[in-house]
């Protein structure tokens, strides 16, 4: 650790010395409006792809090496084809920012003072948010250049809700957003073994009582060691375990109800939820190893039959099905979030905001040809480009069947590639780049898609949107990390029975003492601003 930190410091220092005159200039938002020349070919009405092939743009990404590609992909690899389609050459400089957070390599890239033309980054999680990124001179505000990206601009101007989500409070566009498909916002949920249910003579459970009953029978009649399994940290990942806390009308961490932002654990129902979970854990209905299992252990427990009910990502459920494809007894169905009383609608469940800042791209302040750069990034938002990003080349990877794009066997049934998702990623870029996703699921089997359907809830009403903070708020919001750590520790302690539930009030007192109310207020203010955008 120390060695690493020292190395990091050394690296920071060395690069900052070489690059003192690099990125320190105040290249922030200029008050003067940028005028685009009327003769600019990139802004012309009759602009058509591909461009002339003379422009090379750098991007902080890595590309799979030619030699690593499976044979069937050669000549059709997405990142090769896109250079032909757009007429732009790409220079890959590595150091991608991870989808959800800003990585160490990425921070080093920022300190180097030399930025690629296209920066792939999550400025929402960047300290200070997109406004800091613009004011510190990393990226440019895009609004003035809108003639260069009619695809994106056209969509955002016609779709108010999407526009609100991807802009800053003052309406500034800072990135070419990675925007999910609004119908595909839940990718995590419960799957239960239908054959186990048959064995104990029960229907798929809905209410808390039925769940408890089924799990108890799983334990007593089928002798399962882990009737319900999932990773403990999922209690605390945004909305991952909302399906369990839904009957009490709460979830972790922040959610909205009407105009109000609420923090799960301080709401009334949360203690009851924790009490119920503690009871389940104590009676052995939840995996004893809850705290130490990881994704792959959960998957193997559900695949091997040690667990009868699991909370997993859809891809892991698919892997379980694949592992048991030979076994006709292995039948799995999806379960919707728990409810309190018979007939209630499942309200909360897992939910991904369509836009969370990740996988999006911005144009850096050091980009010399903004027109070409914007045109290249805009391709994904054009009609033709969107299809190519989602499915790959028509006639190679897919065809229209009854008007719907349908994959050929080369994607869905490829022997040389582990699964359809991996194959699809070779020919298309349907989720992890700046684009407005058309569909991210159609390569999966019908059985999985059926399970997936049961994950849908009304969570879009409750989910806290992607907001931006002012500079002062950033300071306050940084208190959240410590509060979060404390919550994870104490709440898990209550559930595992390491701590007596009688201490619940002292726990709430402790997090309030750490500044929870300040954080909540900032969240509320940011949300109010968001609503008024």
């Amino acid at each position: 650790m120390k060695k690493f930190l020292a190395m990091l410091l050394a690296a920071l220092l060395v690069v900052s010395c070489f690059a003192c005159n690099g990125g320190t200039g105040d290249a922030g938002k200029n008050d003067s409006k940028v005028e685009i020349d009327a003769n600019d070919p990139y802004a012309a009405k009759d602009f058509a792809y591909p461009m002339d092939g003379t422009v090379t743009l750098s991007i902080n990404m890595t590309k799979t090496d030619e030699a690593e590609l499976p044979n069937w992909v050669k000549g059709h690899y997405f990142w090769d084809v896109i250079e032909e389609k757009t007429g732009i050459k790409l220079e890959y400089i590595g150091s991608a920012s991870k989808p959800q957070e800003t990585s160490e390599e990425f921070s080093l890239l920022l300190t180097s003072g030399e930025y690629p033309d296209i920066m792939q980054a999550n400025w929402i999680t960047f300290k200070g948010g997109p406004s800091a990124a613009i004011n510190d001179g990393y990226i440019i505000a895009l609004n003035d250049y809108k003639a260069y990206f009619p695809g994106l601009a056209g969509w955002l101007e016609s779709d108010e809700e999407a526009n609100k989500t991807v802009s800053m409070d003052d309406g500034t566009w800072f990135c070419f957003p990675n925007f999910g498909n609004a119908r595909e916002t839940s990718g995590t949920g419960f799957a239960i073994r239908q054959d186990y249910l048959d064995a104990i003579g029960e229907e798929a459970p809905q209410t808390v009582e039925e769940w408890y009953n089924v799990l108890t029978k799983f334990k007593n009649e089928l002798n399962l060691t882990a009737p319900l399994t999932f990773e403990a940290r999922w209690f605390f990942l945004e909305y991952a375990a909302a399906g369990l806390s839904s009957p009490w009308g709460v979830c972790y961490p922040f959610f909205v109800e009407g105009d109000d932002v609420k923090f799960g654990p301080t709401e009334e129902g949360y203690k009851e939820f924790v009490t119920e979970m503690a009871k389940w854990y104590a009676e052995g209905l939840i995996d004893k190893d809850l705290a130490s299992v990881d994704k792959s252990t959960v998957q193997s427990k559900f695949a091997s039959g040690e667990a009868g009910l699991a909370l997993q990502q859809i891809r892991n459920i698919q892997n379980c099905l694949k592992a048991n494809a030979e076994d006709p007894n292995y039948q799995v169905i999806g379960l919707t979030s728990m409810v309190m009383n018979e007939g209630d609608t499942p309200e909360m469940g897992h939910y991904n905001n369509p836009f969370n800042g990740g996988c999006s791209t911005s144009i850096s302040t050091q980009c010399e040809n903004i027109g070409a750069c914007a045109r290249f990034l805009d391709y994904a938002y054009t009609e033709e480009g969107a299809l190519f990003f989602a499915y790959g080349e028509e006639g190679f990877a897919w065809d229209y069947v009854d008007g719907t794009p349908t994959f050929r066997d080369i994607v869905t049934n490829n022997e040389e590639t582990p699964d359809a998702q991996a194959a699809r990623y070779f020919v298309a870029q349907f989720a992890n780049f700046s684009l407005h996703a058309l569909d991210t699921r159609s390569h999966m089997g019908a059985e999985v898609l059926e399970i997936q359907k049961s994950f849908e809830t009304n969570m879009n009403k409750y989910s806290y949107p992607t907001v931006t903070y002012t500079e002062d708020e950033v300071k306050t919001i940084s208190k959240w990390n410590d509060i979060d750590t404390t919550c994870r520790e104490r709440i898990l302690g209550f559930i595992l029975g390491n701590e007596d539930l009688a201490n619940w009030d002292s726990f709430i007192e402790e997090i309030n003492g750490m500044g929870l109310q300040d954080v909540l207020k900032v969240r509320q203010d940011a949300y109010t601003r968001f609503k008024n955008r």
Partner: protein
Amino acid sequence: MATNKKGRGAEIRLDFQKNKVVYFMFVPVVIFFLVFHYYPMSGIILAFKDFKPAHGIWGSAFTGMFGFEHFVTFFSGVHAQRTITNTILISLYQLIFGFPMPIILAIMLNELRSPKFKKVMQTVTYFPHFISTVVVCGMITEFCLSDGLFNQISGFFGAEPISMLSEPGMFRTIYVASGIWQAMGWDSIIYLAAIAGIDTQLYEAASLDGAGRFKKIWHITLPGIKSTVVILLIMQIGKMMSVGSEKILLLYNPSTYKTADVISTYVYRKGLLDQDYSYSTAVNLFNSVINFALVYFANAVSRKLTETSLF
């Protein structure tokens, strides 16, 4: 005093004239250390600043409270006391239980009669050293599951299975014991070497005087390796506050933070996950200062007591 100084100066000058080439060869080494070890240390100034990547280390503004804001935040926060306590306790346990183990093992190996068996034993005990930390932690996690190896063994004696890695009370034991298992054999090599250096005549003489095995160990072997033990002990104490984060990161989870969260894991979470570089530099600086004080203290004590010291 003055003449002494002058005398030394002249001596150095003379030495320099005599060994010009050697001094010249030494220059790159000095430059290396200055550039890569001492100059980067100036980055410690981060601890007193509010670091922004765009402004660089030198351009970022100092924090309030004369630059000590980060330290005040740390010590007034809830994590300071716990991480410091955990760090000290874990290293103390490592020192008490872990430090004597290689010495005992080396002496035991030394007493073995059959050279073949000795060799096999040595190889077997230092083998775990070559397994990477990630793999070791994977094994520990697997063994500690409620249906893992340890629980199967304790279950054989009628104990209820428990998920050992979610018990705050067991974390330090697991951490220290696995550390001993992994390092014991390897660390014993240096003691074996020290024992090999002891004059065999001493043992023969002691045998003639009628000393048994234990007497020989007590009066010859142990005093023979005393200086090695002391130096390694000083170095060990110097490392006391820097309990490595890698293994803890791979083994802990929120339910064991209470006993497992140490300064280095906290620095990791703050610095690399939350990207609060200045704050985590401040915490780490505090850690390093304590470390340095400990080494200095241990060194001074040892110089007084045993006349063996590092500097």
